[in-house]
């Protein structure tokens, strides 16, 4: 399980948030909310280990993530703001190559199935460059299926998606949680997944005092 104690993030000399505690166990998901600039993305990057917290610690199964980097990365799938797909490559190539970068190998049938489920049937072999913004996003999200990760950290996954894709992603997340997966999601929209804890980050003009920003 993922847990964090007393996370503090400072940008420049301005504290974004301080003393954030959270815990996500198997089958649970956490909805991180807050106004623009309240530090949702920064929090997710801390959780992924892409940046280091000013204070506090992120733990995976009770071990600090800096000590078990490779095990943690194997369990983690982080999808950020970026497209994180190569425009010149086709959707199928993108999925296969990112799987190989992660040290795995997936066959073409699996790729087609994942892209098909995200409504990209027949577009597997088109360069991503010619797809629409929403379709690019779907190619990226198809990695949720091809990469078997225990923990999803998703930054605004519903951006640019139509209602059917949002519903589809919700179903996928439900399956993931039912299998004992975990997820941390930021979203301004309502997330079509039941349950879930909520973590509210207050805006930067009103920084949290230590101890605030706990799970409600």
């Amino acid at each position, binding site marked *: 399980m993922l847990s964090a104690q007393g996370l503090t993030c400072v940008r420049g000399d301005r504290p974004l948030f301080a003393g954030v505690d959270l815990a996500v166990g198997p089958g649970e998901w956490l909805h991180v909310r807050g106004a623009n600039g309240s530090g949702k993305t920064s929090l997710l990057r801390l959780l*992924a*280990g*892409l*940046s*280091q917290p000013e204070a506090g610690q992120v733990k995976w199964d009770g071990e600090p993530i800096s000590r078990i980097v*490779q095990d943690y*990365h*194997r369990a*983690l799938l*982080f999808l*950020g*703001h*970026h*497209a*994180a*797909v*190569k*425009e*010149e*490559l086709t959707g199928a*190539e993108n999925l296969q*190559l*990112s799987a*190989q*970068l*992660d*040290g795995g190998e997936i066959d073409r049938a699996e790729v087609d199935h994942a892209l098909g489920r995200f409504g990209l049937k027949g577009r597997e072999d088109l*360069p991503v460059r010619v797809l629409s913004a929403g379709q690019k996003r779907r190619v990226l999200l198809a990695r949720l299926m091809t990469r078997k990760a225990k923990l999803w950290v998703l930054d605004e996954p519903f951006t640019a998606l139509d209602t059917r894709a949002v519903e589809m992603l919700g179903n996928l997340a439900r399956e993931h949680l039912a299998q004992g997966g975990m997820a941390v999601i930021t979203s301004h929209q309502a997330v079509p997944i039941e349950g879930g804890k909520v973590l509210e980050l207050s805006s930067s003009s009103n920084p949290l005092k230590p101890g605030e920003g706990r799970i409600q």
Partner: protein
Amino acid sequence: MSALLAVARRDLLLAMRRKAEVLTALFFFVIVTSLFPLGIGPEPALLRKIAPGVLWVGALLATMLGLQRMFAADHADGTLEQMALSPAPLALLVGGKNLAHWLVSGLPLVVLAPLLGLQFDLDAGSMGVLALGLLLGTPVLSLVGSIGAALTLGVRGGGVLLSLLVLPLYIPTLIFGAGAVQAHSSGQGAGGHLSLLAALLALALFFAPWATTAALRIALE
């Protein structure tokens, strides 16, 4: 190891889809080195003398052209972030990118150099030493250059800064590479220079991916 090859394969595939970038650097090398014989005129003795230096400087500058793009695109579209989060060590993935960069921008120079040496009236032995020197030296250029590319990632006007940062580090390679051909033609034998180039390569292979990884982590913070 499979992750290293996967990155290299991906970058080669991308280079195939963006041929213009690769060909620009190659044509640059061909044109710059061809300007010298045209400018200096038919003086075989002088041309033979300056050939190693001109070809090596051409190779340095041609390598510089593509350096900035080594990580820039990956950084912009977020795939670099995904690489940093891959279960495979980032240094291995960086090694794969270096390998692809060398195959695309270094190896063609090795192949072309003897051909361009003809314009300078180099004899067959000198051309062999030149190609061998480039074969040992161009990977050093890619490896050392990747440190600079990673350090200037996301910096505005990074291109100029990159040249200022990396070109001084290329000096040892240039001296021993060009020196090998001169030593060969003066009858001293190129063995010593080539051994030193090989030593530089071993050193760069060991340390450069590590330094690049550290620089990339800073850029990603």
